[in-house]
């Protein structure tokens, strides 16, 4: 069954889109990630214009983050103060990101910018996660099943920064500049890559800010809702690239997939999950990197010029 996407201006198979939404939803439920970093490249791969893929995916992440944050909210795992500081940074970042997006699109370099940022961030985060989870698997084997300790309080130049703030729920007393900067970077990424940025923010919150793991996911989801909502609004007004029909189709399937994924995830160990996720992240990174470097079969691309 074909359905015509009004903004993407193309006809797609409904079941293909539902299948993609379900599969990515399953993975996001399994690993506790947003899945935007997988969905956006996949949408581009099936022929959705990159600009529309990015704008639409931001819209879909709003929904998946809302449904995700509810559970964390009920358990009290959302540090609102931290979330708001991250959010301020995020709003600045996504505003800059959408402007940058528009500029790169006019230069004809948006596809390259999207691919490059994917390869760069997925490469770094995938490798870090892979090494870290390998490490913790070996450690837990040696010490007889004791989980590896993470976080901890390190004192470095980071603690010398001004504008210190107390974050009760995260048990932190750090400079507000730090979460603000993390927010800005993630906001820019969210706008350019069409992702929530959880895969960058979660490691940054754990390793850079030193937040306790249990509040990290809830707080990042809380912040992502607003940043992706802002991105959706800006992409809709500045670029007209949000396709609600596509977003709704993806959404419905992703919600169902996420629940099945979450049930599966409960049966696997955290280290195993992390290593699987790391492999997947690295695979997406390798594919995009390969496509960027291999000699293209068609050396020319075509885009619409001035509007008539």
């Amino acid at each position: 069954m074909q359905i015509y996407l009004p903004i993407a201006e193309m006809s797609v198979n409904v079941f293909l889109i539902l299948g993609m939404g379900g599969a990515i939803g399953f993975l996001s439920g399994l690993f506790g990630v947003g899945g935007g970093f997988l969905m956006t490249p996949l949408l581009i791969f099936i022929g959705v214009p990159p600009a529309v893929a990015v704008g639409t995916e931001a819209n879909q992440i709003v929904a998946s983050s809302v449904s995700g944050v509810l559970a964390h909210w009920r358990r009290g795992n959302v540090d609102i103060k931290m979330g708001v500081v991250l959010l301020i940074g995020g709003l600045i970042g996504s505003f800059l990101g959408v402007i940058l997006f528009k500029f790169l699109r006019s230069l004809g370099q948006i596809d390259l910018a999207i691919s490059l940022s994917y390869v760069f961030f997925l490469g770094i985060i995938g490798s870090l996660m892979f090494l870290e989870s390998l490490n913790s698997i070996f450690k837990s084997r040696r010490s007889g099943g004791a989980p590896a300790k993470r976080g901890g309080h390190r004192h470095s130049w980071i603690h010398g920064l001004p504008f210190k703030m107390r974050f009760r729920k995260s048990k932190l007393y750090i400079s507000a500049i730090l979460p603000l900067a993390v927010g800005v970077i993630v906001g820019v990424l969210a706008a350019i890559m069409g992702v929530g940025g959880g895969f960058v923010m979660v490691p940054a919150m754990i390793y850079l800010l030193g937040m306790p793991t249990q509040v990290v996911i809830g707080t990042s989801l809380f912040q992502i809702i607003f940043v992706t909502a802002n991105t959706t609004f800006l992409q809709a007004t500045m670029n007209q690239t949000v396709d609600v029909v596509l977003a709704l189709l993806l959404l419905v399937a992703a919600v169902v997939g996420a629940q099945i994924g979450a049930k599966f995830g409960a049966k696997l160990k955290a280290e195993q999950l992390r290593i699987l996720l790391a492999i997947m992240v690295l695979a997406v990174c390798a594919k995009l990197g390969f496509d960027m470097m291999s000699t293209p079969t068609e050396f020319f691309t075509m885009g619409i010029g001035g509007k008539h």
Partner: protein
Amino acid sequence: MRTMTASFARLARLVLACTILFAPIIMSGPAHAQEHERQPLVADLSRHLVAITTGFAGTDVLLFGATDEPGDVVLVVRGPNRDEIVRRKVRLGGMIWANGPAVTLHDVPAFYRVAANRPLEEIMSPAARERHQIGDDVLNLRMSGDVAPEDRAEFREALVRLKESRDLYTVGPGEVNMLANRLFRTELHFPANVPTGTYMVEVYLVRDGEVVSAEITPLIISKVGIGADIFQFAHEQSALYGIAAIIIAVFAGWLAGVAFRKK
């Protein structure tokens, strides 16, 4: 100079088209029955509006007609004009392929299709094809951009090739079926990604390599129904559209979250 000849060719085509279009009106009058016999070419489409609905996956429109005496029938479908930017990929730092030099081609038909009852080369001379703009090799495309004139042909070829790969340009012979040398018919295929706008379906009757008669019929391709409303909403009230998209997403997410808890 080239643009001069191009506009002359365009003008000539327009004059010819108008003459042929209005000839029946001017000449209609007392000798109506006689005139009816004299009309060398009649053609029509099975429909004049292609509606892109939610379930649209490409469509066929039937073109049919008749000629007074045997001759060749050449058919040209032109989509609405727009500017297209063609970019060539270059290698950056010996590693990454990125978009490099760009050329803007002006007033390029978004859709272009030529069909005839036998190979075009056998029917018309290149000069005649150029005069009537039949065939993607003779299309007048104005170009601007930071590319040396000798490289421009390459960009032009790329445009045609890219359009062909998307099913938007086709130049194929033998697709017009002739019956008893007088009646003709063909199916015009429009793919799912067909651009919207006003199309011109031109039918030419050719004898001895020269166009003796032509008929132009407009065909409108437009989005209708929910899809059209969404597109219009997104483009005309983009701020409201953005807010609506967010509200829908928040509501859907909340609904899913609540449903999940009950389980």
